[in-house]
């Protein structure tokens, strides 16, 4: 009875985040500047979670913030940074260079193969690449397999079954059905491969509305869902809001400075506020409302990034 057949998974963010254990293998949904599960990340930090092992594709402030707060022990993402625009991930870089976190950098396609092994109930998957790349040296758990038909030797990777996938969606219902806008990134695969999905949604709606919008992640994969407006901020969650570039820039400079500046950011936006209502209050209604203006016009959208 692995599927969650219950009809009401709605619970407070504190309880949902409380389901994540210290040292858990955590899949982070979304990617780069879009739909990162930031409310859950902030709550995990408030609850003092430690030793987390995160896996995923290309991520940014979610991982960097966990590192900055000392919540992360192992990072198995394919990329952590702020792209060309804002550059390297400061806390992640500092911890990696200082040896305070274990960096097991992976590749999007390899992670996908490992998630599929778990999703398909197979004890391994073969991958075409990886050979010749030093990424392979970071993964002693990889093996090799010889194709019984062609005789070629391929890199074999073990199943990746996260303890929990943290996913933020714009819309969902009490049963845990989630509607996402593309790009889904790895969220569908995370949901199917992980033991449990813990979700936050900007808005809880009735089943009919979610069904009409389209169910991307079915409720039977979800163990808990919490309603958290702007739960992906400062990253985007369309159609609600674009990403908050000024906020990310401010974070990056604080994290780059480190010390008091970084502590200041954490205190102001995470540990110093009791909950996400407090977070939204500090960010400010005006700043949040501004992120919804992307749909007013192309120039308004462009203005957000200028």
């Amino acid at each position, binding site marked *: 009875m692995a599927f969650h057949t219950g009809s009401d998974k709605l619970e407070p963010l504190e309880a949902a985040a409380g389901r994540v254990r210290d040292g858990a293998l955590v899949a982070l949904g979304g*990617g*780069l*500047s*879009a739909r990162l599960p930031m409310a859950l990340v902030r709550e995990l930090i408030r609850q003092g979670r430690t030793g987390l092992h995160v896996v995923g*594709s*290309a991520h940014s402030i979610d991982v960097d913030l966990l590192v900055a707060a000392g919540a992360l022990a192992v990072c198995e*993402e*394919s*990329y*952590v*940074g702020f*792209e*060309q*625009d*804002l550059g*390297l991930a400061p806390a*992640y*870089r500092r911890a*990696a*260079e200082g*040896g305070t976190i274990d*960096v097991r*950098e992976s*590749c*999007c*396609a*390899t992670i*996908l193969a490992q998630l599929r092994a778990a999703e398909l109930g197979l004890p391994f998957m073969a*991958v*075409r*690449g*990886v*050979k*010749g*790349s*030093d*990424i*392979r*040296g*970071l993964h002693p758990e990889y093996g090799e397999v010889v194709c019984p038909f062609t005789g070629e*030797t*391929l890199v074999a990777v073990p199943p990746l079954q996260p303890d929990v996938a943290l996913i933020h969606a714009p819309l969902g219902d009490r049963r845990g059905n989630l509607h996402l806008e*593309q*790009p*889904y*990134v*790895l969220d*569908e*695969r995370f949901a199917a491969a992980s033991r449990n999905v813990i979700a936050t949604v900007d808005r809880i709606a009735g089943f009919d509305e979610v069904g009409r919008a389209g169910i991307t992640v079915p409720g039977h994969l979800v163990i808990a869902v919490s309603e958290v407006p702007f739960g992906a901020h400062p990253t*985007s969650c*369309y159609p609600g809001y*674009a*990403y908050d*570039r000024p906020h990310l820039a401010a974070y990056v400079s604080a994290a780059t400075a480190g010390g008091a500046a970084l502590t200041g950011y954490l205190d102001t936006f995470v540990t110093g506020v009791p909950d996400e209502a407090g977070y939204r209050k500090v960010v400010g209604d005006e700043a949040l409302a501004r992120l919804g203006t*992307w749909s007013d016009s*192309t120039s308004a*959208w*462009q203005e957000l*990034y*200028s």
Partner: protein
Amino acid sequence: MSEATYTIDEWFVVALARTIRDKETVFHGFGSPCAQVAMHLARRTHARDMLLVEGATYAVNPDPPFIPPTGNDVVLQQGAEYRMRFEEFFDAAVRGDVDRMFLSGVQIDAYGSTNVTVVGSIESPKVKLGGGGGGCNLSATVGSLSLWTTRHRAGRTLVEQCSFVTDIGHRTREGTRQELGFTGGGPQWLVTELGVFDYDETGHARLRQMFPDVTIDDVRAVTGFELRVAADVRTVPPPGAAALAALRGIDPLGVRRSEFSPVELARTFHAHTGAACAC
């Protein structure tokens, strides 16, 4: 800026766009403004029937009103014919349906292997870089690779040996692509802010074109591996008026410029009447 005058970032992107052939299926990774703008430029000039796959959104042939500073903003899906799933793109790339991918690197060796993971050793990194995304698999199977860097002049980018190989070129310490069983063709072009390289029959980079304000000695001085020069090395063909106009329309925010140092951005060129136009 007038169409008679243009800067290096514009000419560079035009040169990068020329590596794309019509009807190709082409992809760029995230955090790659120059490649991103180049792909949209190609699709609006000489490669109108290409299949453009946006990095990070996997949108097919979108017509975004502007290129944002982040790779997976929904604006990059505007007007798309289709939006692939993450796995839909990666499966296509691994099975050989993606013809070209743009890849860059903080370090690039003579055979086109790149490093975007770490400067120094992974055990005690000098600089921990962002990471490779999907490159360590995609570089093995995508049809052709167009490499680029805007940091050639710094002298630390084109190196004899990468301190860490993230993405695979024509050969690595473990052997050639053939020996590794890779189905993709590997690096075909390397475009830098100094010139354009292709790869000789041994898979080694070879200088084919230079920008007019650059000499072979300039290039040799900042190239960490043996500089091989094509017999017919020439000047990078200047951008056409149509290409410049299209490019400026595609990238009103100038995100492409974020890849260049201020010094490079000062490089300005004037169109010579009758200059060859490849676009």
